[in-house]
């Protein structure tokens, strides 16, 4: 869900220079003494009280395991991994749709690197490529436009995925394609919306005390977009960046809200998130996209008004219309507990398939397919050479 560190920057036409000063800025957010101080403050604020916080964003899940934060927090604080991994929540039928497009003669399929290895029912895009399909990894939606210009004899289909963070980039691609009259380009739109997913998750009641809000989505939507969580559901919210210091600071604020019984939206990630968000990006998205009546999320099921589709005005560039793609629902294997993991009802190691039938090399379920998925993060960083249930004892 986060546009992993400044992705927007390289979608600009100009080149960025990698400078030494960059890391001095980052290092302040990883300072061991400051982190230790925050951990002490969190322990004293929680005071042994059991508090369950969901980090919504897959980028947060990844960072939490990458930096081992889950093991450093007081044992009474439980971080529950949320549904904010766009690769994970994309249903298999949609992967199959992309693989089908890639196999069409004359089509070049362009997408982000994370999507290439995700298995559909008949293999991944990488498998399709090995079988002769023309699949290209791009770093920005606008790279697809450059591909289309460079290959006038082929149709470039951009397989667009992601939450509110990546949707503006796709919107700009469509605007630009229309402005230039580029005909050999289409977009297979799979953008999804995080707020309807959270509402669906909370609808059946929830044991969660609060949320660590997603930094990059909030940079687009604004901090105010989360006001419904404290108001309607009584949940604490602290919007976090992606460094250890950001995350611990957000945990501390959320814990204080819970303990004080005063849920609110706090934005410690103020260096990126404004209350109203990025109005230009919001305008681009609403010009190009409209809400679908419903969308079948992998692991979460059908959620009303939870995804975007391309508006009539841009119909010529809509791959679903151009190729008459139908939605096919392909269920996950029954042993897979991704739905429970994405809802925060189960930990990855509670699933029988975790690490045995389901690994990052051969994922069965949604949460193992991307490095931001909770199961993949635990598999990559968490296993310390012991069996999975040792995690609970280790805490």
């Amino acid at each position: 869900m986060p546009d992993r560190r400044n992705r927007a920057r390289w979608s600009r036409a100009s080149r960025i220079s990698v400078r030494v000063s960059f890391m001095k800025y980052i290092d302040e957010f990883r300072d061991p003494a400051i982190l230790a101080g925050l951990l002490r403050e969190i322990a004293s604020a929680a005071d042994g009280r059991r508090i369950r916080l969901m980090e919504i964003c897959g980028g947060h899940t990844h960072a939490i395991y990458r930096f081992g934060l889950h093991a450093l927090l007081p044992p009474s604080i439980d971080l529950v991994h949320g549904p904010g991994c766009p690769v994970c929540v994309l249903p298999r039928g949609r992967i199959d749709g992309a693989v089908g497009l890639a196999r069409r003669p004359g089509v070049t399929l362009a997408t982000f690197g994370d999507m290439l290895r995700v298995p559909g029912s008949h293999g991944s895009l990488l498998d399709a490529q090995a079988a002769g399909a023309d699949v290209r990894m791009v770093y920005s939606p606008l790279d697809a436009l450059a591909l289309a210009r460079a290959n006038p004899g082929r149709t470039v289909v951009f397989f667009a995925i992601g939450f509110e963070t990546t949707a503006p980039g796709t919107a700009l691609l469509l605007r630009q394609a229309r402005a230039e009259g580029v005909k050999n380009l289409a977009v297979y739109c799979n953008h999804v919306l995080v707020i309807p997913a959270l509402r669906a998750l909370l609808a059946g009641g929830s044991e969660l005390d609060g949320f660590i809000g997603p930094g990059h989505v909030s940079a687009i939507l604004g901090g105010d977009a989360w006001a419904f969580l404290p108001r309607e559901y009584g949940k604490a919210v602290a919007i976090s960046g992606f460094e250890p210091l950001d995350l611990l600071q957000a945990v501390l604020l959320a814990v204080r809200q819970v303990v004080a019984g005063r849920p609110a939206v706090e934005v410690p990630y103020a260096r990126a998130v404004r209350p109203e968000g990025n109005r230009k990006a919001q305008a681009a998205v609403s010009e190009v996209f409209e809400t679908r009546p419903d969308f079948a999320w992998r692991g979460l099921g059908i959620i009303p008004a939870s995804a975007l589709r391309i508006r009539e005005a841009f119909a010529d560039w809509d791959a679903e219309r151009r190729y008459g793609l139908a939605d096919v629902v392909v269920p996950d294997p029954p042993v897979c507990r991704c739905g429970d993991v994405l809802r925060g009802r189960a930990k990855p190691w509670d699933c029988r398939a975790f690490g045995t039938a389901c690994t990052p090399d051969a994922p069965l379920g949604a949460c193992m397919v991307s490095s931001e998925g909770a199961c993949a993060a635990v598999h990559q960083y968490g296993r310390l050479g012991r069996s999975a249930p040792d995690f609970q004892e280790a805490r």
Partner: protein
Amino acid sequence: MSTSSDASRGSRAPSGVVTLVHGAGGRASHELVASVFVEAFRNPMLERLEDHAVLDWGGRRLAVTTDAFIVQPIVFPGGDIGSLAVHGTVNDLATAGARPLGLAAAFILEEGFPIDDLRRVAASMADAASRAGAPVVTGDTKVVQRGKGDGVYVAVTGIGAVERPVAPSIHRARPGDRVLVSGTLGEHGVAVMLARGNLRLESDIRSDSAALWGLVEAVLDACPGVRAMRDPTRGGLATVLNEIAKASGVAIRIVESGLPVREDVRAACELLGIDPMYVANEGKMVFVVPPEGADAALAALRAHPLGRHAAMVGTVEPEPAGVVLAEGPAGGTRRVDLLTGDPLPRIC
């Protein structure tokens, strides 16, 4: 033949067709090698899965290695496919403690490749070979149809002499040993990634491509008991440490803040969302040394022009066997596993 003994531990044998993931040096590469090549060629020397083989010939020991080079772009900051082919081969010989004697080179050329470019590659290769003391003494040339190659591929075989009573091996790491790296990590991989031009990042980062026999010789003089050496090329330091931990049945614990990484390489990796520990090097060596020899080995490294930024980065522990652990800035410990495929810039 680079791989670990993963397949012997019951992991899945790959089926279907070869994909790019099989070439990335991660878990899939290991499984492919183990289930196809080790299966087919099975012999005790190959099954050790070192980057070299040492053949005994009338009481003398000859080291042999072979490596194929495919890099885009062919010329990158700090080197080109020619110098890279020499350095990679000489460094694989060095992991056996072998002085390079000579190289054999095979060129696979694509129809349409400019002969002037080929001449430049050959000149750079000759220069690197002469500096490394390893002349190219025989070779072969083939041409494939346009579209069936990528300009030029180079495959190089190296022969070296093991003249000291040493037998470094990735199977010999023991609890208590120290892990050293000869310098800063990740420069080659980042330089090549940025040279491709599609990331729109600019930097002064140059490949570290270099021949390391001189450096290895200095370490062997200072610390003859070196247990293991391996050059952290494709897959980076993380992959090499996993290979050593698995082959030796030990754990390796490293402290992330102690890893030598240039600031601009760290910055580029941060922007791309990749971990410098997994990024390729072409002029670095990882050493596992017994604790009593660690200081001498480190001093010898730092005294050498190619080892000025050498660092002690970790220790070998008995448990958990086959696992690499990293201590992060906040004190949390995480597992450093093999990658499934290439380290990719993350979307989101």
